[in-house]
């Protein structure tokens, strides 16, 4: 039969392709250091641009370990650390004392960098530099301001020709630390928000479209004229999305920038050295951008794989020292030295069978 011959040929074809691809991939699997260990992490999308840079650079610093990081959202980082499917989690929402009690073992927070959550928008023909007050922002996200031409926005931007268009609100659809920072801010500045919605990694949004991850929100805003959304500064910058100037506690309209976020961190150093988990939104500092936060890596204090624990600790140490130099170019403010000191002692707490994995240096 003709086709049974063809069949054989096809089966060989498929198997051949599979074998070939295995062969192609094999050298790359073995050529590079073969004793290489894969360390899996997952979580926040907020620092992902920096983390993916870090992990690609760090492969040169310590070729014995590969860090596979999947940006699934801070909620995911917390969840997957809790059930133990990843070696470390990442979140820009710090866990409360109560959350920490729910964890199977003692969990450490390792802040890596700070970042700003910016209000980005897509208004063709309207340039950069839209000005917003905290009230206006809250009302947009509460669904009380629905048009771009609303007097509450127009009066702040007399020089802008705002369209008579519906505001398309975009928020996160996944559990998100960016959402946590953003809603913590709205919670501080708006009573209505605090009573109606509250704060957290996922909330019951009064209006808007959901996008998955900082990537998804930025993507959605970019695709939709009339949209407004909140994303980490690096996402807006890398995608050339404009962002709004926000009125801070001191009454100044501040553009989110490296300096303005640094100012917010600097203003909170006193509290951060006591507890790295304190929110730093709505900073009283004069030049501070009000929606900022630290982002954390989450790791268990007592590790059960010595080599992995050592690699992790080594990486954390690198991240808060040498790694910091990659932060500014991606617009994440580096950690202040006082805070770095605190984290050093946290990293030294990581143990294997009761012994610290990082030799005191």
């Amino acid at each position, binding site marked *: 039969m003709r086709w049974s011959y063809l069949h054989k040929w*096809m089966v060989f074809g*498929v198997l051949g392709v599979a074998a070939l*691809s295995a062969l192609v991939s094999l050298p790359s699997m073995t050529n590079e250091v073969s004793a290489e260990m894969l360390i899996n992490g997952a979580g926040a999308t907020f620092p992902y641009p920096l983390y993916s840079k870090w*992990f690609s650079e760090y492969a040169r610093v310590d070729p014995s370990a590969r860090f596979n990081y999947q940006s699934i959202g801070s909620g995911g980082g917390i969840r997957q650390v809790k059930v133990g499917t990843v070696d470390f989690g990442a979140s820009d929402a710090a866990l409360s004392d109560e959350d920490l009690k729910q964890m199977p073992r003692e969990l450490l927070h390792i802040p890596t960098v700070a970042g700003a959550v910016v209000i980005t928008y897509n208004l063709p023909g309207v340039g950069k530099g839209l000005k917003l007050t905290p009230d206006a922002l809250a009302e947009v996200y509460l669904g009380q301001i629905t048009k771009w031409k609303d007097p509450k926005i127009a009066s702040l931007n007399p020089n802008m020709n705002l369209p008579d268009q519906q505001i398309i609100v975009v928020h996160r659809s996944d559990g998100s630390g960016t959402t946590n920072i953003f809603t913590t801010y709205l919670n501080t500045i708006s009573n209505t928000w605090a009573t109606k919605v509250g704060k957290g990694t996922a909330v019951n949004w009064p209006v808007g479209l959901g996008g998955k991850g900082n990537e*998804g929100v930025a993507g959605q805003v970019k695709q939709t004229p009339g949209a407004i959304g909140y994303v980490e500064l*690096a996402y807006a910058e890398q995608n050339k999305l404009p962002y709004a100037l926000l009125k801070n506690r001191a009454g100044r309209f501040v553009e989110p920038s490296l300096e303005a976020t640094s100012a917010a961190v600097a203003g909170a150093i006193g509290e951060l050295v006591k507890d790295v988990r304190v929110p730093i939104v709505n900073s009283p500092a004069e030049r501070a951008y009000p929606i900022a936060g630290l982002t954390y890596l989450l790791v268990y204090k007592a590790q059960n794989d010595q080599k992995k624990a050592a690699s992790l600790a080594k990486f954390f140490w690198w991240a808060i020292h040498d790694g910091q130099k990659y932060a500014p170019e991606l617009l994440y403010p580096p950690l202040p030295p006082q805070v770095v000191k605190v984290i050093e002692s946290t990293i030294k707490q990581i143990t294997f069978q009761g012994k610290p994995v990082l030799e005191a240096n």
Partner: protein
Amino acid sequence: MTFDRYRRRKRVNVLVSALAFLCAAITIIPLLMILGHLLAQGAKAVNLDFFTQLPKPVGEVGGGMANAIVGTLILIGLACLVGLPIGIIGGIYLAEFGNNKTGWLVRFMSDVLNGTPSIVIGIFAYTVVVLPMKRFSALAGGFALGIIMIPTVIRATEELVKLVPTSVREAGLALGIPQWRVILRIVVPSAKAGIVTGVLLAVARIGGETAPLLFTAFGNQFWQRRLDQPIASLPVQIFTYAISPFEDWHRQAWAGALVLVAMILITSVLTRVVTKGQDRSMR
């Protein structure tokens, strides 16, 4: 007057025929559009790097999906390990011994499984593989895909084994060959071509599955060297890149989609063309 009525009936007939033709034409427009966009966007985006490079860090231009392409092939291989034994041997049971209540139950369950949303199967794989292993892994992804394969393979096997004429079985038994030998040595081999078709169709289906991989195979920016580690796959990579804001990722998402669709269409078109005429219900 009857002539008028006849003319009206004729006209209705022509009108309805035209409408029906229109329906058929409209249904293939989306296909042509999707293929058109894929070709236009994908061809621009595919380059050698796409097949040989690993993904670049966020925001950097370039890189490729080499690990995801290989990852998809590995996942399909693992899925076959799970899905084929159950599908083929189960199908043999249904064809040879399945004329009873058990057969009915298995058939019904496999139909239900066929209609079960793949995301639900993903939850299942997460619960029974990822959580106990405490790790996302290629194994978990392969397990989920393998389960999705089962109904297609089991049904194809059953039907094609059944198509083998009874006389063949009787001839074997009359020679004094035990039944199990008859089935394994004579009946199944003569249905082999058809079973392979069913398997290839199942492979074409799972090759594009995304939802069950999201929280089983997870993802990996690097080459995967162990099956108990997370693994990259083409569909998940396309999804991640498609919803992102980065233009270079959009480009690669189109390239990935083109490659994925090409892989799937070539498999299923070849299967269909090759087996045409052999089994009408496969058309």
